[in-house]
């Protein structure tokens, strides 16, 4: 097993984002919402204000640090929901086949036909803005790829000797799926989940930017960028730092996903090199 630079750099960036999110209250200099002071409005980055201040005089560094909590919560939780839905549907469809398989296939095709950001936008329109709505919207719209992989893995695994043996030993369907099939398909599913987390962080930022996700004054990186747009000429630092935070977090997740793929999905490695 070779640990490549992607895995190390990606893992380090993701670990840094998690660290910042978890220890935000200790790392932040001020309260990200309450500590507004118009006397300090639109200060450029300096030793006092590391990332500068916004139009209300709030410390951008503290807001970026707290923003990590929202972005990572959305990324991790929504992708977890996607992975559970996708794996359950794909595993059961591949195992039971018949009408259930046809139904799941139809559902997957439907999901693939509607661009996921537009689907999420429609769900947000129905549920209204907020963290819970974001988790639901992003958790329900990006499972089709996981489902396809889980289904394909199940189809190839279920005829294997050890699965047949488990059946002969009297294992029930559920037990075979959980103890025999699931552990053998986890590799590619973890890889997709890592990449999907990055996509969810970007989607959260996009929806918040459009005014449908996290609403100001709460510090989400997307909503901070939305607020920053009008001050791009007078205070460009308002746009630079939240965008950089999104970029580094998603870059970390994408590199981590690539690195994990080389280790957990050896078939794809042989395809790639």
């Amino acid at each position, binding site marked *: 097993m070779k640990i490549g630079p992607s895995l190390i750099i990606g893992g380090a960036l993701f670990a840094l984002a998690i660290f910042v999110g978890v220890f935000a209250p200790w790392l932040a200099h001020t309260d990200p919402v309450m500590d507004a002071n118009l006397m300090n409005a639109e200060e450029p980055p300096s030793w006092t204000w590391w990332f500068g201040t916004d139009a209300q005089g709030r410390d951008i560094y503290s807001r970026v640090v707290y923003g990590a909590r929202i972005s990572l919560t959305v990324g991790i939780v929504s992708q977890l929901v996607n992975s559970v839905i996708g794996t359950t549907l794909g595993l059961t469809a591949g195992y039971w086949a018949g009408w259930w398989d046809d139904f799941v296939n139809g559902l997957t095709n439907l999901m693939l036909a*509607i*661009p996921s*950001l537009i689907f999420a936008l429609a769900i*947000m*329109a129905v549920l209204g803005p907020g963290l819970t709505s974001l988790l639901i919207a992003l958790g329900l719209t990006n499972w089709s790829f996981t489902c396809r992989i889980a289904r394909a893995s199940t189809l190839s695994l279920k005829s294997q000797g050890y699965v047949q043996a488990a059946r002969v030993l009297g294992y029930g369907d559920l037990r075979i799926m959980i103890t025999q099939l699931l552990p053998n398909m986890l590799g590619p599913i973890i890889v997709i989940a890592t990449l999907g987390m990055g996509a969810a962080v970007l989607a959260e*930022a*996009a929806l918040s930017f459009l*005014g449908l996700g996290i609403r100001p004054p709460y510090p989400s990186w997307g909503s901070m960028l939305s607020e*920053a747009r009008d001050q791009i000429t007078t205070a460009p630092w308002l746009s630079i730092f939240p965008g950089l935070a999104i970029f580094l977090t998603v870059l970390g997740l994408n590199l981590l996903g690539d690195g994990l793929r080389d280790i957990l999905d050896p078939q794809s490695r042989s395809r790639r090199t």
Partner: protein
Amino acid sequence: MLSFAIRRILQTIPTVLAVVLVVFVLFSIVPGSIVTNMSDDGDPQIEERMKKQLGLDQPVYVRFGTYIAKLAMGDFGTSFRTREPVTTMIAKRSWPTLQLVFAAMAFAVVIGVPLGFIAALKPGGIIDTFSMFVAVSGLSMAKFWLGLLLMYLFALKLGWLPSFGYGDGSLKYLILPAVTLGVSPISLLARTTRAAVLEIMSADFVRTARSKGMSETRVVKWHVTRNALVIILTTVGLQFGALMGQAVVVEKLFSWPGLGSLLVDSVLQRDVPAVQGSILVVVFFFLAINLVIDLLYGVIDPRIRYS
């Protein structure tokens, strides 16, 4: 080929119907009636009259039946806000979106495919490492952030291009939005092309061609490129869907008068017929583009039979 095209069109009908159903059902369960949101004073009599006007007093299944029947005639209903036919609104907005999406994809193909090719010809080299790093970076960037930075640099600082708007529809207005939108397909195309070329380079027929003494240029031109094209074309087709989605954000950032900004504005104003209509048209465009790509497979690779 004609029978294949007809069969493929027929195959997409259930998907289109399912999308119509999902979009309709989704907006029929909106908590808090649209009418309550629209009438400021909450007078029950006014609400009742508005419901009747908008046809919302009928049961859901009757509304769905009417909606499908109207859709079949190309009628998307009337906008709750502007009272304009949604079909007219969509017709005005479709061309700018298609212009933007195709320009972004053309930009991505022109940059991404050669980048992937060069990377694959010397795997592990400096160009390979650099281009793959650029590719991952492009995928990790929030489109609107990149757009903001490009706008700041090229429009506000250097003054080379207009910062937003459609203007007279000329190329200079299209450049910044198209480049912003095209960055993530560049990354994906570069990565896919690299993977495809690497795989084809190690295939038996390439080894055979080389052992027969065929020059490297001819091997790449005749064997590798043609075989990689099918995979590249598939990626292009699938990426159109993602681009249609991301166009929403880019259009909003650059005040581009396309379907995406119509969708966001309608969502924010709870204009249900306009939201339903724009989503359906986006899905329709995506399915249509993929149908065309399916038909192109056979032109590029004669081994693919339309059976």
